[in-house]
């Protein structure tokens, strides 16, 4: 069952075609990676999927969780908050935590999208709001515990070391209870040890939370270790697609990354 599919998704900024005719599909519970040199259009692809940009042409289709065999929903150009509500969560290339707030609050707020109580019942502290507030806190703490951040719950988000900030960002995305998780260069700026931890972490949350993961990454090691399939972008075009082993041997990919050998 496909979770996400793009059909000819294209994004142009003026004369620049950042992403050209992107056709990817992601099956349930897969880890799929998008790789490519700098400026290949990977983050733009993410932004099209999450609604930050509306594609110039083409479509983004999404299968809602528990929707059985219903047709896929067209989510092209929907508002980001609505897309998050549908079960697509993301992290950012340059960490975007809520800086002035504690680690716990960062995760708590991601529960807001699932909150069923209206503003007035929240203000009046009616019992069912109180209950959902308590549930949110407990869920958040369990989540923080599972990513190893429970001891830092009351610290300021920005006081965490870099690797943990990345982890917190992933935890925050998980708190929205997504079906599909988009990770934008989760290992950027990490040392080898942190990178290895992260690789295990991503594989583990995929199993624990029954997730489908789409990931952008530069670290070849992570990509080769955990992804089921890989798409390679270069100058906005999809130049290759296949399993890690296939990609490693693909001459186009090697050319894109290392340049052409002069005759």
């Amino acid at each position, binding site marked *: 069952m496909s979770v996400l599919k793009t059909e000819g998704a294209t994004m142009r900024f003026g004369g620049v075609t950042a992403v050209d005719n992107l056709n990817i599909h992601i099956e349930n519970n897969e880890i799929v990676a998008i790789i490519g040199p700098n400026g290949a259009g990977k983050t733009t692809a993410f932004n099209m999927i999450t609604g930050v940009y509306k594609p110039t042409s083409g479509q983004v289709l999404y299968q809602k969780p528990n929707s059985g065999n219903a047709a896929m929903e067209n989510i092209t150009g929907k508002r980001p*908050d609505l897309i998050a509500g549908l079960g697509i969560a*993301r992290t950012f290339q340059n960490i*975007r935590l*809520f800086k*002035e707030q504690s680690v716990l609050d960062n995760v708590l707020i991601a529960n807001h999208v699932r909150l069923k109580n209206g503003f007035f019942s929240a*203000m009046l502290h009616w019992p069912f709001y109180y209950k959902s507030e308590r549930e949110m806190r407990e869920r*958040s703490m369990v989540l923080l515990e599972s990513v190893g951040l429970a001891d830092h719950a009351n610290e300021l988000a920005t006081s965490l070391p870099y690797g943990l900030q990345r982890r917190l960002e992933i935890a925050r995305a998980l708190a929205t209870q997504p079906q599909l998780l988009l990770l934008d260069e989760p290992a950027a700026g990490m040392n080898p040890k942190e990178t290895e931890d992260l690789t295990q972490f991503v594989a583990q949350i995929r199993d624990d939370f029954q997730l489908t993961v789409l990931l952008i990454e530069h670290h070849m090691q992570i990509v080769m270790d955990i992804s089921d399939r890989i798409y390679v972008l270069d100058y906005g075009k999809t130049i290759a697609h296949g399993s890690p082993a296939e990609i490693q041997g693909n001459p186009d990919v090697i050319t894109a990354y290392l340049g052409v050998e002069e005759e």
Partner: protein
Amino acid sequence: MEKNKTRFRGIASGLTKNKRRNLLLSMIAIIALTVFLHFTEQGATVGSYEVRVLNLCAVYAVLALSMNLINGFTGQFSLGTAGFMAIGAYTTSLLIMPVSVKAKVFYLEPIVPWLENVHWEGNFGLFGALLVAGLITAVAAFIIGFPVLRLKGDYLAIATLGFSEIIRIVFTNTQSVTNGSTGIKSIPNTANIWWTFGVMAFFVVFMLRLMKTSYGRAFKCIRDDEVAAESMGISLFKHKMLSFVISGFMAGVGGGLMASVLGAITPLLFRFILAYDILLIVVLGGMGSITGSIVGAFLITTAKEWLRWLDAGFNIGPIKVPQIAGLRMVVFSALLMLVILFYRRGLFGNKEFSWDGMFRLIKNAPKRVAAWFKPKPKGGGAK
């Protein structure tokens, strides 16, 4: 697992060991304030001039909270407070004025028939009038919010300022409803010190509670990072609108109280200067701090009054300073700059008052003072 769960609860609710002591101290503080207000109302503590200043302090605190909600907590630079106050002030005044007074005040052009015989008397009348004032202002904020909340930063500030001026100009020209530029006089002074402090206390509790709910947290996240907030499923427009409407409601009530405290209003009172006065309180107290807004309101309002002696001319030893009109504002501005230099994020930053924090401060005060006077260690001596 069970053990873990209780540990979570402990962290999650931020339990403190000193909870009991703090509760006791809070109760003592509230009782002391109530007793003080009681005797002040009886005229036993301070004179009527000071009571008036205290009233204004509380009203400004409400207005500062209103502006802090949208500017400090939600991060939307809105300067429309003066316009919203005008709506609240005029609504309240027209509802609580006696019929005979209305006839006298509207001497240039008679008041419109549907307002002519409205007179909401006494405390109940004022309560209803303030509520209606708040609601009408909230509706106005809702309507204005649709176009302006699509803007960000400086553009939002200019747009809200523009709407605020539009409201004022409209009020200047609707002679038969607002009495035009002459303004309204003889508004009943129903709002005594219980009213101003009561409304202030209500809104303080309201804000504390709001910031503890998921909606309050959503506001703060929008302030910290709009893009991230939106990707986490927070509808930016909906939450900005919510904050803007609540802020409008508070400004309307604050404006209504102000009208009843002052007893006379004209459209000129609600120029954009008024919004800056309130912004000053918010910034000085700390953007995103409820305590800061209250302390800021009391400090600035009283300082402005207290510094009046500067205008009258005075002697510094043998030097005679002549009477200079406006010297007060010069000194006032200089003081403000000093405060902002030392407390860049306002007196409270985005922190709130807590008894624990106060005791920590007292405990560490000697150390801090000592650190001031301690000679600085010579840095290596190598030049």
